[in-house]
């Protein structure tokens, strides 16, 4: 088996190194993008490139914005409770 094939297969049998830090929460962004793409692919009556990208970006942006607002509210709440 060529070395490249072995390397590709091996990368699926051991986990990547991701630390437990605030940056690791950024892994939600590709997931939100996938959800927005599939949701819009099922909901739009007709799919044209421009319209699909526009609708998907709107859903992606509003989801991320809502999560950021929720994070800030919870952070402020935790700060108020802590003082």
């Amino acid at each position, binding site marked *: 088996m060529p070395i490249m094939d072995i390397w590709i297969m091996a990368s699926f049998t*051991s986990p990547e190194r991701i630390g437990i830090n605030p940056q690791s929460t950024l892994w939600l962004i590709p997931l939100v993008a996938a959800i927005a793409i599939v949701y819009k692919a099922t909901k739009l009556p007709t799919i044209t490139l421009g319209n699909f990208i526009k609708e998907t970006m709107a859903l992606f942006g509003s989801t991320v914005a809502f999560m950021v607002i929720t994070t800030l509210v919870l952070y402020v709440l935790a700060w108020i409770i802590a003082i």
Partner: protein
Amino acid sequence: MGQQLKENRILFFMVVALLAWCLPGAGHFLLNEKKRSIIIFVTIVLTFGAGIYIGSIGVIEPVGAKPWYIAQIMNSPMVSVLGYATAGGSYPVYGRPGEIGQIYTSISGLLNLLCIVNAVYLANLSRAKVAGG
């Protein structure tokens, strides 16, 4: 006649649902929704692939994480082959990569479930149009 038509409809819906489950996007492809099927296939396969790349194939755990496994198997029945391979616990999975991998693979499975339901809904609509409804 009406009974036979009804049975054929149910059979058609079952074929659409089964195809959509076996291969993400295949249900829409059968309904001539080629753009939708390509978008669904690429997105779901990439999300699932990213999940098993980040957390290793050990994130598919039919014994220790049954609720996650039920969501993961919605990707395709082929996931059960991976589940069979990992059932012995021979692939390491731990910490944050394990969590992220499990979430990615499960969410892609639930997205495919949404696509299965949508494909059957579209099949129902197209049948209704053919029947003049």
